[in-house]
């Protein structure tokens, strides 16, 4: 019995000693006594404009030394005075953080996008702006999507670059005075640090240069002829003035090009074939086929090369000559600088009643560029 009591008392003393030892060890070396606000690192702020008095988005990135996983944790962003917040709210802010700790924040992947609200809830971080101070307060469970781990990279977007849960519509206006300004990072999450940014009177370079206007137009042959017109067969004008009975060759061509923004148009003006007071009837504004024995004078255009195009009613295999609407457009082209070669063909038919004589006409082709 006596030995048992001694053994029992010794056991109690040992247990007390162990507890005392553990208590004192924890009390002395508890890490709680060494948790202080530590400096953040790898911090930066990417602006979309450094120009004074100009709105800009901010993308603030930094590595947290401690993380954030308590409901009492806050991340405070203090904007420098003179930067107009324009009363941005939580919808203009994004908070994201990397999965796990990072060695730096050079190119982290922000896999965790936290939901934000005006005040914290069980799932949302609170984002409240007071003066120049944006305070992000951890959700009431301290976690949100997931707790921010030690050495995690944190990204805070402010402005129209905030897209989580909707796109922000308010940006911060830069200070009106060029110079260096400090954005402060603090809060109960235990990270502290500054980010210096630079505001310029102008961060842009305006570059100008002129592309001169170019237009070219040429007619291959200013003199063409039908030869002897006939009431029994159609005649087609040729460059040698002898004419032809077949529509196999261009009487002449003209080439056109421009770099005008709206391209060019070519018009024709003049009169039908005339001999004194007598004329060969112009075909008119509707393209028609050759009609032997009937007075006809008309033209049609063929695009031999290039990107231009003949204009109706001169664009088909039939013929037209719309003197009523002269000057009448016969061709057009874009301002692509490409030279288009138009082949121009002329037809004439006469009837038995057509007065004899030398018939001729002078047609003018005019090109107009639209810049």
């Amino acid at each position: 019995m006596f030995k048992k009591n001694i053994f029992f008392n010794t056991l109690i003393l040992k247990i007390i000693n162990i507890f005392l030892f553990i208590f004192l060890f924890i009390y002395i070396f508890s890490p709680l006594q060494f948790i202080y606000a530590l400096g953040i690192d790898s911090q930066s702020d990417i602006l979309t404009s450094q120009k004074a008095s100009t709105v800009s988005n901010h993308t603030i990135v930094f590595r947290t030394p401690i993380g954030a996983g308590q409901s009492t944790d806050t991340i405070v962003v203090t904007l420098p005075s003179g930067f107009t917040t324009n009363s941005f709210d939580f919808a203009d802010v994004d908070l994201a953080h990397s999965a796990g700790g990072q060695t730096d924040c050079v190119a982290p992947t922000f896999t965790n996008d936290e939901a934000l609200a005006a005040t914290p809830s069980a799932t949302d971080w609170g984002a409240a702006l007071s003066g120049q101070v944006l305070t992000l307060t951890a959700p009431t469970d301290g976690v949100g999507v997931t707790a921010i781990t030690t050495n995690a990279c944190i990204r805070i977007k402010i402005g129209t670059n905030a897209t989580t849960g909707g796109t922000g519509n308010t940006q911060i206006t830069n200070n009106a005075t060029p110079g260096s300004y400090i954005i402060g990072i603090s809060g109960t999450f235990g990270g502290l640090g500054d980010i210096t940014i630079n505001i310029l009177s102008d961060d842009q370079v305006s570059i100008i240069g002129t592309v001169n206007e170019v237009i070219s137009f040429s007619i291959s042959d200013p003199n063409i002829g039908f030869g002897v017109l006939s009431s029994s067969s159609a005649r087609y004008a040729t460059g040698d003035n002898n004419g032809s009975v077949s529509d196999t060759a261009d009487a002449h061509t003209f080439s056109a090009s421009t770099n005008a923004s709206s391209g060019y148009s070519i018009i024709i003006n003049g009169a039908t074939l005339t001999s004194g007071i007598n004329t060969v009837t112009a075909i008119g504004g509707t393209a028609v086929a050759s009609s032997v024995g009937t007075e006809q004078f008309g033209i049609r255009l063929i695009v031999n090369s290039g990107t231009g195009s003949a204009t109706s009613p001169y664009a088909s295999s039939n013929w037209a000559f719309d003197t009523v609407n002269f000057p009448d457009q016969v061709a057009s082209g874009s301002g692509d600088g490409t030279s288009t070669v138009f082949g121009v063909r002329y037809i004439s038919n006469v009837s038995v009643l057509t007065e004899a004589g030398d018939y001729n006409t002078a047609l003018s082709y005019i090109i107009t560029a639209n810049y």
Partner: protein
Amino acid sequence: MNIKKYGQFILIFFIITGLVFSDWSSFFNFPLSINKAEASITYQSAGAVTISHAHAVGYPASVASGDLLVLLIGYKATALASSVVTTPAGWTAITSLTDAGGYGVDPDATPDVGDTAIFSFYKIADGTETNSLLYEVDAGASTLWAQIYRFTNSTADWNVAGTTGSDTTAGNVSIAMSADPGVAGGDYVLGAMVIPTDVTTPSQFSAEAFTQTGVTFGTVTEISEPDTSVGIDIGGFVVSVPISSGTSSAAPTMTATAGGTTTNVRGPGIFIRAREVPPTFTQSAYRFFNNVNSTDVGSALASQDTVATLSSTGDAFRLRMLLHIGAGELSSSGQDFKLQFALSNGICDTSFTGETYVDVTASTDIAYNNNATPADGDNLTSNANDPTHGGDTIVNQDYEELNNFTNTVAAIPVGQDGKWDFALKDNGAPASTAYCFRVRKSDDTNIDTYSVIPQITTSSGATQSLTFSISDNTIGFGNFSTGATRYATGDTTGSASEVEAHTIIASTNATNGYVITVNGTTLTYDGNTIDAIGGTNTASSVGVEQFGLRMTATGGDGSVSVPYAASGFALDTANFPDQVATDSNGNDVSTTYSVRYIGNIATSTRAGLYGSTLTYIITATY
């Protein structure tokens, strides 16, 4: 056996180490607080009664610092209703009652009748109160009496409260006061009444007495029956009485027997309670400011009650802090305080968890700063951005460059806040480190309450620097040609040979250097564009649309990034904003980037005045 000995040695080692390095004194709540001795107030004497329009009343004899002085003024208005007495400088109004007595006529120039008024003020003497006190009364209060009464205690801690009532009927006096000012054993009461006649005074009143639920009054002593026949007559009585015991739970009643002609024994009564009670102190508000060589402060570093961060190592700064006074008035220079600071344990909390506070000195990490012009203890100059505490009256005190400090400027009445201005600096404190501040009594005891704890964070180290400049914001190619390459120039006329259009100069001391990006569009005119070269460095190609840039770097360690670094040109709009240059070592040496722009057009390029705006952004990573 040896193991057991070593175990005991280790145990003792940890016990001793624990006691040495832990805050054992606070852990065991040691030293124990010592309860204050039972209060003891003595009514000493009164000054002479003033009865004229001189508006000067004599101080009692032998006024010493810490004495409580009470000033009573009774008057009858003859020309101006509800006349007022202006609170004398350095005094605090207690309570007052005008137009009392139930006559319903005020002002009334008829002798021996009419409503009267009583005003009361107090002051904790600073020992300079000799001869007489000048006070100001509305001109309409032509007939009056005034008298000052002196009380003493051993601590100079005072709390004064009062209430009033009115007797509207003739005969003996019975005045039910309107409120309970709070009365308890050890208090002292001054009672008084004003009547509009001197027919029987100064020997009219006797058997003055008080009743109040819960309170046992001591012996009532009549101090005076001040009266005058000058003007339209006035009278009254003043008594004092110690409180024997109890605690009040209702408003008091003052009674007295009136002899002689009692027809006009009607008017206001007053009940003033004096208590010996020390003031309580609450650290109630603060704000950090930039330092200036003045008793004024510079611009605010942060909002009120908000942590602030110093911008540079070694920065001087100012802390303006309020102490709210409760319970008893803080007499002038009534308490010595000192400012302490501590390394923050994450957050500066009002329980000081994990923080070890030490006195701020001229050599601590956070130290007092000695500005050239103002001297320690000078009166501070108020600033529009100073901290406030609700609607409390702020009593400006001193500018401080050293501990200890006190309220040398003025006493601070109960319910008001004293404001002090501390000139401080980062005196070699670690970078990016947060510190907390608290005010303590000079005897190393905490003040009563800490509602706020100022926190400031030192700069992140060497002052961050970032410079960035663009030499020319407008450049041009002149006229493009399908037959020759054009290069942009600063005079906007362009060149047929490659030249520098502008420079960019950048530097930083950020740990991870900087990157420069370009953003914008290619050359554009009216919906038409000149093709950007893209993400591959490409040589000039005459007759083919090209718009691009390249850069060369000189000085510092900055370098041009691919694809802008080679002899060809690039403009990777698909990846805009695209990095064009970087400096990874943050050596704070400037690098000058020469930026060259190329433009080629094709015959198909539409005519027009083309333009592009490129934005260059520098981002430092610290």
